[in-house]
Structures are given as structure tokens and as C-alpha cells.
């Protein structure tokens, strides 16, 4: 079976581009695994890890925040405002992410925005605890 073409893009640069076996995404409505030939899909992402599985290698984990995924016949594209390879992820970087998420909670004006920002903050805190 042909591989899945996967691209991970952040505003600063193209982080990953290549053929992979599968990608697991932290979708806003639950984790989902994407293989080649997936039906077209659009989904927002919650903060979490994108797991990229390649042929015969250990899966690569990348932390994303403020992300969005698109699947079309050409492959999978993830647009993320922040993306950090899990190897580079440390307590200091996480604390920075949490600080900015807390600022977002404080800045949220309506209930819906506050709920969303709080949810994102909870996920981040969970990841920080797991580090």
C-alpha cells in the first residue's frame, strides 16, 4: 500500500514533509489515526502529541498547539501554531506554553471562549505532569 503523504507546517517553517505509514492526531473530538486512503476530513486539534509512524522505525512524537488538520486525496496536512519535537520538549518550554494558555483564558471574553481556553489549558497541564 502506498504511504501517506504527511506535512506538518508551522507559521515559521515547514517542519515535516514525507511519506509515512500512519499518523495519530489529537483531534478536538478525540484521538484519530490516519492511514493512506482516508476520506477527506477537516478537524481542529487540541494541544497534544502528533505521533508519526514510519516503516520500521520508532514512531516520532511532535507536540502541537493551536492546530488544524486536513486530509485530502493528496495526503494529510497539519497546520500548527506551535510545534515542538518531543525530544526538544522540556519543562521550560512547557511552562512557557502554559503561561500563554493562561493568558488566553484570562483574555477570553465569552463563556464559550473561556471554556475552550480552559480545556486547552487542562490538556497542557496533563502533558506537563506527564513529563
Amino acid at each position: 500500500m502506498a504511504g501517506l503523504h504527511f506535512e506538518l507546517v508551522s507559521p515559521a517553517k515547514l517542519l515535516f514533509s514525507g511519506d509515512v505509514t500512519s499518523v495519530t492526531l489529537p483531534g478536538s473530538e478525540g484521538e484519530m489515526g490516519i492511514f493512506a486512503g482516508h476520506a477527506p476530513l477537516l478537524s481542529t486539534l487540541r494541544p497534544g502529541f502528533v505521533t508519526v509512524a514510519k516503516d520500521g522505525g520508532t514512531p516520532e512524537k511532535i507536540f502541537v498547539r493551536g492546530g488544524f488538520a486536513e486530509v485530502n486525496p493528496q495526503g494529510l496536512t497539519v497546520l500548527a501554531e506551535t510545534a515542538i519535537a518531543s525530544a526538544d520538549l522540556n519543562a521550560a518550554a512547557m511552562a512557557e506554553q502554559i503561561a500563554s494558555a493562561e493568558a488566553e483564558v484570562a483574555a477570553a471574553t465569552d463563556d464559550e471562549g473561556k471554556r475552550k481556553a480552559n480545556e486547552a489549558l487542562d490538556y497542557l497541564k496533563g502533558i506537563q505532569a506527564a513529563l
Partner: protein
Amino acid sequence: MASLKDLRNRIASVKATRKITKAMQMVAAAKLRRAQEAAVAARPYSERMAVVLANLSSAVAGQAGAPQMLAGTGKDQTHLLVICTAERGLCGGFNSSITRLAREHADRLVAMGKTVKMMTVGKKGNDSLKRVYGKYIVDAVDFRGQKAVRYDNATGVGAKIISMFADGEFDVCTLFFAEFKSVISQKPTALQLIPAAVSGGKAPDLAGAVYEAEPDETEILADLLPRNISIQVFRALLENAASEQGARMSAMDNATRNAGDMINKLSIKYNRQRQAQITKELIEIISGAEAL
């Protein structure tokens, strides 16, 4: 007529100026490469974003619940012009060409009886606009003392635009910046941010399939549209940074060349004058000797 000493001093000072402009040109060339790389690296994101938005907006187009950021408020009475310029001068016509485009746009709108509001990003634009258009400027942002444009800078500007829009302070938002074409050519550009102009992206061929959206399209759009504004601002800032360095590089190259020409002219003048003085002294000595 200037004395020989005056000429010598002037030559020395022009030489010092040439050294400075030469150094500035080389610094700009080094910075340009970095700025250009950053601008190119940011392109995939905004391109993908345009494609996704084009997809989504065609799905919700014409629906009653379409977000205002996409469909507009239905009026075009109040216009917000976001004008991105550099923090520093000495870069040729870079800043003035952007502000000129913005001024023409503002004058046109005022003549049509619209209300104009301006938000300047960058110190130079604010400096040149505040004298005549000061009454329109509602906000001024600058990034003085920063080495490179960061994404948070853009999100900061984006958040301001979005909150103004949410408060109903304007109907149409246009972004002004200089698009980087090449080192010698930077094109001042006006880009409409709100309502979003999404015709740029081409939707991929789905072979008859329809996107599954999770959560639904409207919710995704509500999430994506504010992000799109930050992205467009970020792109504009990066393009601007590259354009500024390009403009500075060619301006300083010109200045260096002009200084060289001036040194040549002054040296010729200096030599002529020196010779004339020697001749004059000789004549004085000879005629003195003849008189005896």
C-alpha cells in the same frame, strides 16, 4: 573659492560617509538573506491556510450563519487601514511608497464619504502619517529593539484587529505592506483582510468526495478565521522585513557610488587648485626676478 584645506576636509568627510554607507549596505545584504529565508519558510503555511479556507468558505457561502469575518457586516461605512512599515529609515523610498499607497486609499475613501481609521505597525509609518492623518490613527504598534519578526508579534496585532472588529468599530479592514519581489523591486500592496478575500486558494480535487468536518464547518471557520488574520499579518511583516532590507541595500549601494563620484570630482578640483597655486607662486618669483 574654497581653500585647499577646506577641500581636503571635505574629501575626508565624504570618504568617511562612503565607509558608513558601504558598511550599511553589507549589513543589509546579510540581513536580507535571513529575512528572505524567513519569508520563504512562512509561505507554505499561508498557502495551505488559503486552500483550506477556500474549501470551507465555498461550503458555507450564502448560508445565513456564515461568520461575519468571512461574509462582512453587510456595510462598508467604516474602514480600518493597517499600515505596516519599517522601524528605521535610510532605506530609499520603502516607507514612503507604502504610506503613499495608504494615503491615496484613505483620500479616496474620505472623498466617498466613508469613515477612515488607521492602525500603524512600525515607527516610520506612524511618524510620517501622524502629521496630516493623525486624527485617523486609532492605534500604533511598533517593534523597536527587536531583531526579527516573531509570530507572537503578529498574533498581538491580529488580536487587536479582531477585538476591534468584534466591537463593531469597523466594517472593512485592509492591510498595507510591501511585497518582496526582488532586491531591486518591492511592490507596495493593499490586501483586504475582512471580509476575508479567499479567492486566492485553489481547492484540491476531491474526486467527488465531500469533506467530513469535525466539529462542523462553522465551528472550524470560527476557529480558523482569526488565525488567518494573524497569519496574513505575520506574512506581511515578514515580506516587509525582506523588502526593507532589499530597499536599504540598493539605497546604500547608490549612496556608496555617489560618494565615490563626489570624491573623484573633489580630488580633481583639489589637484587643479594646487597646480594653480604653484603656477601663481612661480609667476610671482619669475616676475620678481625680471623686475630686478
